[in-house]
């Protein structure tokens, strides 16, 4: 069953067309990886799905409801669709716990005690429970990113969007964060993630999409894309990634 439906989405910044008709279906419990060169529009697509950017054409549906365009309750949409950013974007003036409980208590209407309990349980899962009362600046990048994932999960989203969440991390911290995402995938969370970690994409993805210059040039299972790419551009991209040692 298709849960997230993206139909011919266009996005332009002024004169620059960044997305030129992207269509993509994500079924429940599916993990879709977006790969592609820098500037191909991966982040833009994720930001459009979360309505952080208005789209210039096409349609996005979540669970059958149109969520793009005018007259959409974006705040309700965003409770169903969580996003984690490359640069964590934790709130520096709040403790880890407050970062996580902010949205459930303020917009979800969850009582504080219950939100705290839920937050601590989630933090425990990612090994951050003992840091609940710390401020983000005292955490390492990997720890901050784990908190950011928990913060996005705290509102119980139906889909989680992950935008290169390990790109800003030191190599030895990448593993911890990816392990958490892998666990979420096993639990059946629907995810759409942009990544440069090809090995990881191969492990978790049920579908891999190669984004090139604002369109999805090629899509298929991880095996199809990585072992037997059909498009010349895909082959070039994978070859470049391979020489950079990321496959």
């Amino acid at each position, binding site marked *: 069953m298709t849960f997230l439906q993206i139909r011919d989405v266009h996005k332009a910044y002024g004169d620059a067309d960044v997305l030129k008709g992207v269509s993509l279906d994500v079924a429940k419990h599916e993990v879709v990886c977006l790969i592609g060169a820098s500037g191909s529009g991966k982040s833009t697509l994720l930001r459009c799905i979360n309505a952080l950017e208005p789209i210039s054409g096409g349609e996005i549906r979540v669970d059958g409801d149109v969520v793009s365009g005018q007259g959409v309750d974006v*705040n309700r949409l965003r409770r169903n669709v*969580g996003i984690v950013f490359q640069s964590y974007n934790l*709130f520096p003036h709040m403790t880890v716990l407050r970062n996580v409980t*902010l*949205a459930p208590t303020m*917009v979800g209407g969850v009582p504080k005690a219950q939100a705290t309990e839920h937050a601590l349980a989630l933090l425990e899962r990612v090994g951050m429970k003992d840091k609940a009362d710390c401020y983000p600046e005292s955490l390492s990048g990997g720890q901050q990113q784990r908190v950011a994932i928990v913060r996005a999960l705290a509102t119980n989203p139906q889909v989680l969007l992950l935008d290169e969440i390990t790109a800003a991390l030191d190599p030895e911290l990448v593993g911890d964060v990816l392990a958490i995402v892998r666990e979420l995938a096993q639990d059946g969370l629907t995810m759409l993630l942009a990544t440069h970690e090809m090995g990881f994409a191969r492990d978790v993805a049920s579908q891999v999409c190669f984004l090139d210059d604002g369109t999805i040039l090629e899509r298929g299972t991880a095996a199809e894309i990585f072992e037997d790419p059909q498009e010349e551009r895909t082959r070039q991209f994978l070859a470049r990634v391979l020489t950079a040692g990321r496959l």
Partner: protein
Amino acid sequence: MSDPVTAELSAAAEPSVPPTPPQRVVPAAAIALAVSGLCGLVALSALWSLHSMLGSPASGVTVLLGAFGVAALLPLVPALRAFNTARVRGRFLADGDLAAARAAAARGRDQSHTALGYALAVLICAALVWFATANDGAISRTFLRWEFIETAWRSVADAFWVNVKVAVGAEVLVLVFGLLIAIMRLLPGQAGRPLRWIAIGYVDTFRAIPSIIVLYLVGFGLSLAEVPVVKDLPPIWLAIVALTLTYSGYVAEVYRAGIESIHPGQWAAARSLGLSYGMTLRTVIVPQGVRRIVPPLLNDFIGLQKDTALIGVMGVTDAFTQARLTASNVFNLSPVIVVAVLFVVITIPQARFVDRLLAREQRRAGRPS
């Protein structure tokens, strides 16, 4: 190094780098000595004329002036030391110890610069003393007559309470009103456009009009026009309203800068969690922005406090009005000096507080994240 060309190059390059010679010290030391001697003499003669102006002062005062005289000659010490260091430098140079000579040269120039800096400070102080004693002391008699300061002190200090009340009242209102205008100015989208324009118009207008004119117009205009409620306000409240109008314009811009300095990722993160625009402002953006704006905000507040000296134009008796009254009675400006001193006294702690905050920000910014 197997490459013959490279080997040749490096062999040639090594002796061709000349050793850095130690800098010269004697010229700097000579200038330092001359300047500090001259400044010392000027200061001594200024002190002497002060002493004769005072007639036959108490021996305590004479001793104090003497101590100042000695202090005025202190810059000679580092200047003389610089000469000594110059000798040391010469000895090291003769021994061929270039590194030690360079170190001595740096120290000697440092000493010369220290002497110069202190000598110039002495000169400035001497100029102030000259100014006070000029015209056979007419200047200090105009501004600093103790008996007038003593008589005016009570009434002026009492009236200064009015300034303090107006300042504090206006500051509280400005904090609220300025934030409202800043938020109006930052409203997003088509829907926010008319309110944005109003906010921009407000800031443009009230930053442009001199506050003394706003005070005048509010003080007389509102009651002349019989504006309901406002016309019955006591004048001190009108003063608060007028200064709030003016300074909200400045403070709105300070708030706006603070809000806009927050990284857009904070907006994205908060909105992506489902927080509305208003919630995001209230819980994420403004709390972070406010921390950064305290220093510029306090600067504007110091400006506001000083402008309370203008509220006399609307018929409120503040410290300055009171002091002018007393001054014209005794035909001497000493009472006005009392007001000036009071303003300095309340401003200095705030200025130091701002310095401390700025220093803390600097340390924070300098810290690698």
